[in-house]
């Protein structure tokens, strides 16, 4: 009976599993806070929350393709490309701030969805391994984003952009946090309460089974990649607004970072697992860790070393605890 209850709890994406995933984050946070009290100051908590929300959005995109047993290495470059193209489009129409911001967001989302459609087309219709497809997309976008900007950031944003997308707040909560929360909640509902979401999990777990069960594997996989790049574009819009310029280098190493965060949060590269909770828990962990190390004034080289080591440790710990729960 208890096992049935436990199994039930296990299944809810935002339940016990999520809380368990938060444990390492809490431990790390507590450790740094004891060492450096400013880590736990309200100012820094807001800071952590804000930093997490961008990473969490990107990670969520990654989680969605991971659920389908794919992955997206191009996510970082998609962010960069959306950033510059949306910025370029916006600076054409800065006379009318409202129009400019709309153009910015619409163009950004459209470019993101296009990139997702490109990835999705090759992964799901042509059926090439997602690793190679998104690697290729990465290279192509790298070339494109340097071509459109010639290497220089795109600046000259209307100040309203910052006012609306960065500095505004709802009941004291900064707007990026609010928007991230809304989007994450929406995706959470999509994943757990819609046929689309359910199909993604089944496809990730066994695509042949999904096909035999009459699920449109290709269309759903395509959708997953578009959703992933759509989220990347959404995050890119918020991040670009925050940076105040369209940046060809803004995506950087996001691909690996989001995959690491997703896996730490409980998604699996073999597919069929993960959810909004994974994205949030993983992004929070990475953010708390690097924020803590920054505030604890740890040597920058050592930070890099530590992040790698701690990721390995947390995965080992996770793996061992799974193993023991099976045999105990």
């Amino acid at each position, binding site marked *: 009976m208890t096992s049935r209850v436990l*199994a039930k709890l296990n299944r809810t994406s935002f339940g016990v599993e999520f809380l368990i995933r938060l444990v390492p984050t809490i431990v790390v946070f507590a450790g740094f806070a004891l060492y450096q009290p400013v880590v736990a100051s309200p100012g820094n908590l807001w800071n952590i929350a804000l930093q997490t929300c961008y990473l969490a959005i990107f990670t969520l995109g990654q989680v969605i393709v991971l659920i389908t047993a794919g992955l997206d290495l191009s996510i970082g470059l998609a962010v960069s490309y959306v950033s510059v193209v949306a910025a370029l489009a916006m600076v054409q129409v800065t006379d009318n701030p409202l129009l400019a911001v709309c153009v910015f967001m619409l163009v950004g989302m459209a470019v993101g969805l296009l990139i997702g459609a490109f990835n999705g087309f090759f992964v799901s219709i042509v059926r090439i391994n997602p690793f190679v497809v998104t690697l290729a997309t990465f290279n192509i976008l790298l070339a494109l984003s340097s071509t459109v900007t010639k290497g220089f950031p795109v600046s000259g944003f209307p100040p309203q952009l910052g006012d609306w997308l960065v500095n505004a707040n709802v009941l004291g909560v900064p707007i990026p946090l609010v928007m991230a929360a809304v989007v994450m909640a929406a995706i959470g509902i999509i994943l757990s*309460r*819609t*046929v689309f979401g359910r199909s993604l999990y*089944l496809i990730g*777990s066994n695509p*042949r*089974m999904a096909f035999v069960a009459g699920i449109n594997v290709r269309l759903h996989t395509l959708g997953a990649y578009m959703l992933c790049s759509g989220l990347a574009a959404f995050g890119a819009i918020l991040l670009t607004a925050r940076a105040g310029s369209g940046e060809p280098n803004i995506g950087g190493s996001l691909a690996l970072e989001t995959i690491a965060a997703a896996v730490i949060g409980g998604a699996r590269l073999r597919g069929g697992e993960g959810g909004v909770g994974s994205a949030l828990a993983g992004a929070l962990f990475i953010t708390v860790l690097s924020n803590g190390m920054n505030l604890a004034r740890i040597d920058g080289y050592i930070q890099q070393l530590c992040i790698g080591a701690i990721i390995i440790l947390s995965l080992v710990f996770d793996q061992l605890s799974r193993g023991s729960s099976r*045999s105990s």
Partner: protein
Amino acid sequence: MAIDAPLLELTAISKRYGPSLALDQVDFDLFPGELHVLFGENGAGKSTLINVITGNVAPDNGRYRLAGEEISGMSPQGARQNGIAAVFQEFSLIPDLTVEENLFLGRERKHLGLLRKSEMRSEARALLADLGFDIPTGRMVAELSRAQRQMVEIAKALFEKSRILVLDEPTASLTDTDADTLFKLIAELKRGGVGIVYVSHRMREIRQLADRVTVLRGGKKVATVEGAGVTEAQLVEMMVGRPVGDLYPSIKHVPGKTLLEISGLSSADGRVRDVSLNVRAGEIVGLAGLVGCGKGEVGRLVFGLEAIAGGRITLGDGASETPSPRKMLQRGVCYFPADRGTDGLAPNRPIKENASAAALDLLEIGGKGWLRKKTEARRVLQVLETLHVRPLMPDQNVAQFSGGNRQKVMLARGLMRDISVFLFDEPTVGIDVGAKGEIYELLRDLTEAGAAVLLASSELPEILNLSNRIYVMHEGEIVAELEGARRTEAEVLAGFFGKQPAEVVGIEARP
């Protein structure tokens, strides 16, 4: 060695997987020259025990003695070095290697560190010829049918002189002819003093082969009995813990309207040629034939899983141009693949999601794209209860269930929506008698409720006992349609050998 010294002696072996105790204080022993059958329902713990014997699973506790010697921490390599060979239920073959490479895997013939390929090739050919298995040694295992893989798996286990041979459902996908070859071999090995552990759900084999039978139920040993002095009924009763009636239910076939009509169907890969058949409401139509004759592919073609080269598929409500699983499901046709592992189930998702996977487009479950989770849970629970899935935990992942229960979960898909045409491909591969009986009853209930059932099976008794009509296939073509009194073993077997009975069928004869 004295005949009373056991080769293998397991005492009080236990193994726990999460909440379930797969093995609970099980004792087991094996004497030289003996064939010891392990018998039990799906999930009783047979494969787990075998994995303990072969060193693939470490028991939580218990004693393991091999030829009187206590061994702790047996590994697969250790087991092999100690003369334990095994045919596994989920095969131990490497799809990307050739038959020959598989046969020698882990014990390649080497000279100065270099492989001796030609020596291995001729040895492999000789072995397969000895066994009477007609399989090209140079072909990749990925290209073989399940039956052929089963043969390779058996050949692999028989390769080296071993003291103990473990066979976990070796005949699950073999026809009787091939099974008989195996039985002759087994008899020979027994004479040579080899101890054999044998798992099977087929009563015929157990009757024919068993020296002793150990019955497991729910991870516990129920009894060990002499094979000669026990009846089928007794065994089955021990297995399920209650008396059981006839395995095959009597089915009242009332053929009605034709719900599925296939005419001149050919597959693009050429494995099915010009097949015509029809299935009517209220009857089970058997599709029999030798391994790889294409009987399974007919269902896959109808369901749109494989490319069609020509022919027509007509359902009760009209013709179907380009079939696809989705369209077919919507028109009341459901196909159940033979290989539940690769085609049938999503292993790391809950059984609930697996059961409802084919019904997500229904208004009551996934209406307009939104899941109705409550309805879904209720309906799934109903269906799982009907099928007696055990344990009844809809939120548990499929991977945690035994073979038979996985099979039932897969079948649950067909009960979640209105299906009038059921295409079964080997619906009872590797599942226990109890579960088999339950599945047969399901077939009966479906048929009597007016469904049309196409049953492709390699188990001749299954076909003979359940079908109203039988089509026999040979090399991709239908060679006989048997009805009424002609549904006899002899007639079907005649069809197995097709137009040229002299030439015994082999893979190479196919285009």
